[in-house]
C-alpha cells in the first residue's frame, strides 16, 4: 500500500512539474497578459453597465438605489471624520491641561517648599534673637545698680528742669 502511495505521489509530482512549466509559459506570455487585461477591461465595463441599469431601475420605482445608499454612507463617514478631528483637538487640549496641571502642581510644591524654608529661616532668626536677648539680659544683669543710678540721674535732670520751668511760670 505504501508503494502505491509513493507511486501516486511521484506521479503527481511529475504531473505538477510539467503543468507548472506549461502554466509558466502561458501566464508569462505577453499575448496572454494582454488578453487578460482586455478581458478584465470588458468585464469591468459590463459590471458598471449592469450596476447603472439596476440603479436606474430602482430610481424609476422611486426606491433608494445603491448610489443613494453610498452617498448617505459617505456623508456618515465624513461626519465621523469631523468627530475624530474634534476628538483630536480635545485630546490635544487634554494634553495641554495635563501639562499645565503638572506644572502648577510643581509650582505649588515649590511654593510650599519655599514657605517651609522661609519658616525655618524665621524660626532660626527668632531663636537667634531670643539667644541674643538672653545674652544681652545676661550681660546687663551684673551692671544693674550702676545703670539704675545712671537712669535715675538721667531721669532727675528733666524732672529738675520741669520743676524749674514750673517755678518760673509761677513767678
Amino acid at each position: 500500500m505504501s508503494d502505491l502511495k509513493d507511486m501516486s505521489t511521484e506521479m503527481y509530482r511529475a504531473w505538477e512539474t510539467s503543468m507548472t512549466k506549461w502554466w509558466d509559459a502561458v501566464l508569462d506570455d505577453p499575448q496572454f497578459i494582454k488578453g487578460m487585461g482586455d478581458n478584465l477591461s470588458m468585464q469591468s465595463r459590463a459590471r458598471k453597465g449592469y450596476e447603472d441599469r439596476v440603479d436606474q431601475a430602482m430610481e424609476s420605482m422611486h426606491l433608494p438605489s445603491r448610489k443613494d445608499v453610498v452617498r448617505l454612507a459617505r456623508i456618515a463617514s465624513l461626519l465621523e471624520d469631523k468627530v475624530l478631528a474634534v476628538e483630536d483637538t480635545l485630546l490635544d487640549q487634554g494634553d495641554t491641561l495635563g501639562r499645565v496641571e503638572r506644572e502648577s502642581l510643581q509650582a505649588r510644591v515649590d511654593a510650599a517648599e519655599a514657605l517651609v524654608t522661609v519658616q525655618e529661616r524665621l524660626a532660626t532668626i527668632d531663636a537667634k534673637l531670643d539667644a541674643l536677648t538672653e545674652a544681652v539680659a545676661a550681660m546687663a544683669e551684673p551692671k544693674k545698680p550702676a545703670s539704675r543710678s545712671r537712669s535715675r540721674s538721667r531721669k532727675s535732670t528733666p524732672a529738675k528742669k520741669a520743676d524749674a520751668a514750673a517755678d518760673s511760670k509761677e513767678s
Partner: protein
Amino acid sequence: MTSLLGRTAQTAKFLAADPVLTAKTGQTPHEIVFRMGKTALRYFPPSPEAEAKRPVLISMPLINTWTIFDLLPGRSVVSKLTAAGIPVYLVDWGRPGDEDEQRPLSYYIDDVLGRMFDRARRHATKHHDTDELDAIGYCVGGTFLSVHLARNPAQAKRVAFVATPIDFHSSERLARWANPDTFPLDTLIDSVGNYPADLMRTSFSWLKPSGQTAKWVGLWERIDQDGFPELWAALEQWNGDNVDFPGEAYREYVRRCYFDNALMTGGWVLGTTPVNLSKAETPALVIGASRDHIAPPTACGGLEKVWGAPCEVKTIRGGHVGICVGSTLAATLIEWFEQPEA
C-alpha cells in the same frame, strides 16, 4: 501508516464536516482600544509573567483580514510576541465599503496610521508607562508603514518589515501583470469603484495555479498529521476572505508602486508631501520569505538600497503566508526587538 484508501476516506470525512467554514481564527484575547472608520486598533496585553518590553504596533495588509497573525493557538505571531512580554497594538483595516472608494491613499498612510500610532502611544503611556513604540509591517501594510515612517521618523524606535514589497519591479509575475500597457487600471477603478475582493483572490490564485492542486494533495498527504488539518482549514478560510481595496487608494498604489516603482526611483508626491524613503531614521529589519511569489525576497530587499537608516535583511524559509504560521518569524522578530539599540 494510513492506507491509501483510509487516507482518502479520512480526507473526505474531514472535508464533509465543512472545516473551512467552522475554523475559528483570531482567538488570542484582546480588546479594541480605538476605531477610525472601518479601521480598528486591537490591543493584545503582554503576558504578566514575562519581563516588560517596548510595545509594538503592527500594520497589517489592507487586502486581507488581520487574523493571519493570529490564525490558531500555537500558530499565532501576536501570542508569541505577547508571551515574550511585548504589548501588541494591531491595525486591523476592516472591510472598506463603497463609501470608501474616494478615499485617497494618503488617508490610509497619513491619517489612519498617524492616528493609530497616536492612540497606541497614549494607551501605552497609561498602561505600560512608556510613550515609545516599535513597529512591524506585513505585506502591503509594511509598504504603507515604510512611507509613513519615512515621513514621520519619530513614530517608532525600530521597525521590522515582513514580506513587504518595496522594489515592485522585482515582483516577478505580479510585476509583469501589473504593467501600464496591459493592466486596465483606470477602466477598472472608474467602472467598479473599489478593487473587488473576489478579483483579488482570483488574481492571487492565478499567480501560481499549481498551488490550487498542491493544497489538496498536501491535505491528503498530511491528513493524519496532528494539527495539520485544522491549520489547513484555517488557512483556507483566511485565503478566501479577501477584502475590497478602496478604489482611489488602489489606483494610486498600483500607479506609483507597480507602474512607476516610485519607492525606488522617487518622484511620488503623496497628498502634498514627497515620498522619500531615504529620509527614514528608524533602524529596520527586512524579513523576506524564500518561496514568496507575491513579494519575492528581491522585491523586499529593495528597501536596503533606499532606506535612510541602518537596514538588516534576512530571508526565512517559507511562502508569503506560510511564514506567518511557522515559528521562525515570531522568533526572528523577538530576537530583533530584544537586541540592544545602537
